[in-house]
């Protein structure tokens, strides 16, 4: 299983804050997971088809989409940050 979190605009668009799911068999890295989510269609496709700027964190560290993922990981997706 992996834990996937969504924040801010993305959380609102998807209507989901977090979910636990089995690591998809073809999802070796963050980009694969994003493709998996986009394949759900609808708002998922709209948000994860590459047109919307999305940042990813793996186990609470900012990572590039090429970062490898494995069972037990916490992966978060969110828009560019705007704190401070």
């Amino acid at each position, binding site marked *: 299983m992996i834990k996937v979190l969504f924040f801010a605009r993305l959380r609102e668009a998807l209507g989901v804050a977090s979910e636990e799911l089995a690591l998809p068999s073809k999802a070796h890295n963050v980009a694969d997971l994003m493709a998996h989510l986009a394949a759900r269609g609808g708002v998922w496709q709209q948000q994860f088809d590459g047109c919307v700027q999305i940042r990813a*964190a793996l186990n609470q560290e900012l990572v590039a989409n090429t970062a490898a993922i494995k069972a037990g990981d916490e992966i978060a997706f969110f828009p560019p940050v705007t*704190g401070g």
Partner: protein
Amino acid sequence: MAVRIQTQDFDTSAEITALRRARADIGAVAVFIGQMRDMNDGSHVASMTLEHYPGMTEKALEGIVTQAKTRWDIVGALVIHRVGELKPLDQIVLVAVTSTHRGAAFAACEFIMDYLKTQAPFWKKETTPQGERWVEAKVSDDEAKARW
């Protein structure tokens, strides 16, 4: 070293006093306070909600402070960032850095703010006369970070 995420306001004098901890080797304290404006991108802003990623936020800020401590000869650093609902004039963020000499304190304080703006998982949602909107990230913040 300390990082705090909180909904309540902070008192700058008290925080600086605590950070100094009566250390007489400190000669310089550089401080930044971000406060909420009532205008952004041409619209009046009535209130703002700050969302964050609990757990990662603290790690990200601690990582930024550790980087600052590696790069400059500083004694201590404090970051307080508020979350939840804020109104114009409210304080949002405090960054304070102590050091023996002022150059390191200024540089580390500005570095922490520039990194916080682009690396720490906070998101602002504003309430304007046209409704609610998520604040867009600014290219100028990426540029400010890229200087270091």
